[in-house]
């Protein structure tokens, strides 16, 4: 009798697993065919490092591409300026191992792969950050189950060859900077902020993300940033290489400043 129940329970479990796994139906195969092929390695245009870790692109080029200021309302403009002043010293002592959304798309040296399936597009970054963008029609997590993470909760849909993404519940992204010589602009948004992206391939080897930051509390209007990612076509590298901060990190933060630890 007992073994009968076990067989029944096992059968139910197998049925549940089977129902959660999309079968390779003709419809699913057709869906695959309609999706773009974004295979390969991608890297953001404008933050391509050379062997020294510096950008290959010129400072003028980067300034022209990146400098801008969020359209704050007066209250949040003041808050942003206050934070900018407060972080002017702190950033020197900050390390970043997790970029999160939207920084991983806006300004990150991490390479990524984009794995496109009918149910989900996964963006896998060299720092082992992964964005899961569900395109199977599910909604966001319900409010009573939602909590902020570095990557938030992303759902999307396809408009032709354009992946449209809505992301909510993004935890405070890690603040980092590369040099304080030219100053930096700090963006500060409310807990109401959410992100809308339109990712498409604008050229054979060029993806583009139009990322709109929507925050009715801090911004007078939605604010859109455009970023591009070029396919890594490079004889020196043909696969994803692991990056992390779990290795031999010799740059501890001491008294709020980055230091360099000499070998013992």
């Amino acid at each position, binding site marked *: 009798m007992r073994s009968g129940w076990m067989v029944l329970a096992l059968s139910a479990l197998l049925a549940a697993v089977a129902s959660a796994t999309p079968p390779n139906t003709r419809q699913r195969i057709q869906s695959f065919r309609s999706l773009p092929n974004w295979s390969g390695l991608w890297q953001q245009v404008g933050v391509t490092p050379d062997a020294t870790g510096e950008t290959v692109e010129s400072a003028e080029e980067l300034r022209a591409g990146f400098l801008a200021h969020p359209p704050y309302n007066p209250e949040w403009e003041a808050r942003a300026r206050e934070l900018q002043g407060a972080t002017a010293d702190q950033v020197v002592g900050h390390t970043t191992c997790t970029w999160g959304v939207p920084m991983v798309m806006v300004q990150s040296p991490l390479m990524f792969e984009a794995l496109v399936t009918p149910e989900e597009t996964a963006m896998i970054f060299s720092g082992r950050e992964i964005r899961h963008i569900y395109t199977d029609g599910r909604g966001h997590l319900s409010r009573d189950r939602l909590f902020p993470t570095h990557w938030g909760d992303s759902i999307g849909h396809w408009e032709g060859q354009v992946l449209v993404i809505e992301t909510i519940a993004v935890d405070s992204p890690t603040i980092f900077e590369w040099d304080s010589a030219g100053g930096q602009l700090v963006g500060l948004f409310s807990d109401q902020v959410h992100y809308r992206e339109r990712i498409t391939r604008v050229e054979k080897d060029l993806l583009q993300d139009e990322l709109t930051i929507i925050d009715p509390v801090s911004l007078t209007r939605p604010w859109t940033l455009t970023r591009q990612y070029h396919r890594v076509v*490079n004889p020196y590298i043909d696969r994803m290489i692991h990056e992390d901060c779990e290795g031999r990190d010799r740059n501890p933060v001491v008294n709020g400043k980055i230091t360099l630890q000499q070998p013992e």
Partner: protein
Amino acid sequence: MTTKSALAVRVVPLLVLFALADSALAHHSFALFDFKSERELEGTVKEFQWNNPHCFIQLLVAGGGGTQEWSIEMTSPLHLLQNGWGPRLVKAGDALVVTIHPIRDGGHAGSYVRARTRDGAPIDPPPPPGKRPAVPPGGGR
């Protein structure tokens, strides 16, 4: 505190943009180095530390006060591989002349700029071929 109220009290700081002149891309600021100055070190490699998050060349440099060990910080293995480097491009015992951006505190450390052998041959592999796309005007609208 409910999830909703926890969300409501949170403020989301985000560093959106940076002035990138003299910048280095890494998991931390390179402001500890003086990017406006360069110094040449001639020495012998003690160890090439090929590891995340950043690689280091440990260089033994003979000076007036005896031999000193210098730590020369590079970027991550991924970005070095991308530029033709590998974990065995430099090895213990190699005699090198290394140019660095020195650390600001005056210690025996710096950020890697370039290196050559004592007979003048550069050790940096040639940059990968191919045209890089221009940075799009995407500052915000």
